[in-house]
């Protein structure tokens, strides 16, 4: 009887165990489900029906053929397109466009685009996401026919080559991420150039040179604490030190003043316009932000190098730096690089510090150098997401996809790099 009681209780205990382990598993599943939902909801916004209204219908501006039917814009050649532009745009606007790039030299495709943007002036009435577009096509068409009968419904993929090649625009239909991609790219390259040597150097110092005294312990604790400081605080640091205090340096005014005697006046003017809110300031800020991560990771990588490797180097008469440079670093480089890529991908995604350092809210020009004004992909995503209109939601989602592809390719590059270093070491 006693035995049966025990076995019943054992059964109960095992049942409890099963319930709990199911609970534990469900929690893990929750993380996966969240990830999938997040990705799905982003992708869902990147395609769908769009209801577009034109300020002038296309039929009104195009010439007619012999039978009186309008010739569609798509089948017109440069000549016809140019005459449409002549008829519908004011002389001043034409001159301005001609100054940007002579109209006669533009390709028919460019001219068509110009006519659409300048003459037809499409605006989005409403856009639908992919799921809605697939599931309730009829009701979308009905709604469109009732609300804006003269509008046209088009199915639009928001990620397109024109999205990648255009710059920011106040019309979501023409907006793109080119200057943001360039800005992100330039910022992050400069960040790596600043942060990587510093991070690696600090790690080498702490692991190979530093004695265990109070100062070095303080440096270590300090790095650990810095890694927990919210990124927005780094933004405030960047604003206070790089943007304001070091403005002559970070705006480039210092350098252009030196060459002001020459013909660098436009450069100087551009620098003054940018004040300290430049790519250089952003990169310095991001470099400080990812530095603790870099150092901690590189320290771990260096610590994992076996002691014997160093000793054999010393035994052959190598100096300390020779041992580090020829033995310790090559054999820990794969780990160091992997950690660097992780830190850099965190840097690419940072938004808040760059808002503080003064990323431009509306930039239609590409950044030209380290002293230009800038915008980055996350900044664009932030601005577009905070707009109420549905079409900006779509381009924000499209920009997110671009950002995620960028991050993923960076991470796969890291894996390839790491494997290469590993195989080299084995040889």
């Amino acid at each position, binding site marked *: 009887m006693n035995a049966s009681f025990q076995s019943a209780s054992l059964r109960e205990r095992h049942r*409890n*165990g099963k319930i709990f*382990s199911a609970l*534990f*598993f469900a*929690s*893990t599943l929750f*993380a996966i489900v*969240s*990830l999938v*939902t*997040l990705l799905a*909801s*982003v992708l869902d916004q990147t395609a769908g029906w769009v209801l577009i209204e034109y300020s002038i219908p296309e039929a009104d501006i195009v010439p007619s053929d012999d039978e009186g039917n309008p010739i569609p814009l798509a089948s017109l050649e440069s000549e016809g397109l140019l005459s449409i532009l002549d008829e519908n745009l004011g002389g001043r606007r034409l001159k301005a466009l001609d100054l940007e790039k002579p109209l006669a030299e533009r390709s028919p495709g460019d001219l068509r685009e110009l006519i659409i943007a300048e003459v037809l002036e499409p605006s989005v009435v409403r856009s639908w996401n992919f799921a809605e577009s697939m599931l309730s096509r009829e009701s979308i068409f009905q709604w469109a026919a009732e609300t804006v009968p003269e509008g046209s419904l088009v199915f639009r993929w928001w990620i397109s080559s024109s999205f990648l090649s255009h710059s920011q625009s106040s019309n979501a239909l023409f907006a793109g991420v080119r200057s943001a991609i360039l800005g992100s790219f330039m910022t992050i390259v400069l960040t790596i150039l600043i942060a990587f040597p*510093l*991070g*690696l*150097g*600090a790690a*080498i*110092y702490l692991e190979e*040179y530093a004695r265990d005294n109070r100062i070095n312990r303080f*440096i270590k*604790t300090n790095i650990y*604490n*810095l890694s*927990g*400081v*919210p*990124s927005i*605080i780094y*933004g*405030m*640091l960047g*604003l*206070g*030190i790089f943007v304001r205090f070091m403005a002559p340096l970070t705006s480039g005014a210092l350098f252009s003043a030196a060459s002001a005697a020459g013909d660098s006046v436009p450069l100087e003017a551009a620098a003054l316009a940018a004040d300290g809110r430049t790519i250089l300031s952003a990169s310095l800020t991001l470099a*400080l932000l990812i*530095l*603790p991560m870099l*150092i901690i990771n590189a320290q771990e990588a260096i610590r994992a190098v076996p002691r014997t490797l160093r000793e054999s180097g010393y035994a052959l*008469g190598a100096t300390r*730096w020779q041992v580090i440079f020829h033995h310790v670093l090559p054999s820990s480089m794969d780990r160091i690089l992997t950690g660097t890529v992780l830190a850099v991908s965190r840097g*690419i*995604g*940072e*938004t*808040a510090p760059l*808002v*503080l350092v003064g990323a431009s*809210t509306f930039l239609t020009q590409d950044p030209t150098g380290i002293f230009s004004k800038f915008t980055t992909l*996350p900044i664009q*995503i*932030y601005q577009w*997401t*905070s707009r109420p209109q549905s079409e900006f*939601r779509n381009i924000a989602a499209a920009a*997110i996809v671009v*950002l*995620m592809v960028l991050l993923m390719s960076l991470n796969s590059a890291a894996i390839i790099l790491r494997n290469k270093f590993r195989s080299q070491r084995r040889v």
Partner: protein
Amino acid sequence: MGTALAGKKRPGEMMVQLFLLFAAGVSVLTTLGIVVTLGKESFLFFREVSPIEFLTARKWQPQIEEFGILPLFTATVVTSLIAMMIALPAGLASAVWLSEYAPEKARSVIKPILEILAGIPSVVYGFFALQSVTPALRNVFGGERVDVYNTMSAGIVMGVLILPLISSMCEDALSSVPHSMREGAYALGATKIEVSLNIVMPAAFSGLAAAFIVGFSRAIGETMIVALAAGAGPNLTLNPFRAAETMTGHIVRISGGDLSYDSIDYNSLFAIGLLLFLITLGLNMLSSRLVRKYREVY
């Protein structure tokens, strides 16, 4: 030959060592920079507004010179608490599953997924909160009860953001519990769940606590999710369905606009920043003390 080299000065080596020392010193300079920047501007702010008023007044309206941090602070605490209510149980449970239950194959799939989740930029989470979670909440609870911007959706999404961090820190703590303790309990006839709950978790307690504190500190400093989804305007409320601006959200919104330097509005941002810095620093130091404790025991 060897003795001839022994005393030789090597300027190259000295240069390298100097650079390395400088590199290590940059982190100290960074801390100094943060303290000086925040301190200087906050000092200018506190010359105009008394710290007591700053900490206790119930209104934050720079237009009429009202600088009470309370509405911003409550919103920060509300979003962080909601985030912790999700991230804490889910993170701990998934850590127990990964460290005690999961077969090696499942681990090798799920760990990278958690890493992907941790690697997604927070602005993307902000998009997710505003565009997907808020509409879902409004569907479930009704549009008139849930504002377009609300602390609930920001908190939930922030919980998902912090989950991988808590999960991986908890897993570290759990897996550093020595195997002999588990084996001992098994030998006494304990089931797996009893070992996990009664032996491993108490033994890793300080590590788990450290994970929670770090998670909380991360939630307080998190910016983009709350900037996009929690609301744009200070509002003293505990209702998670109402819009309320957090400390970080306020800093980003105001600094993103046209802000003139040397105004009291500008200085007030640094006072908020200083408070934020002190809170997160305090929490991080507490957690590193706890981590050291569990590392020492085993």
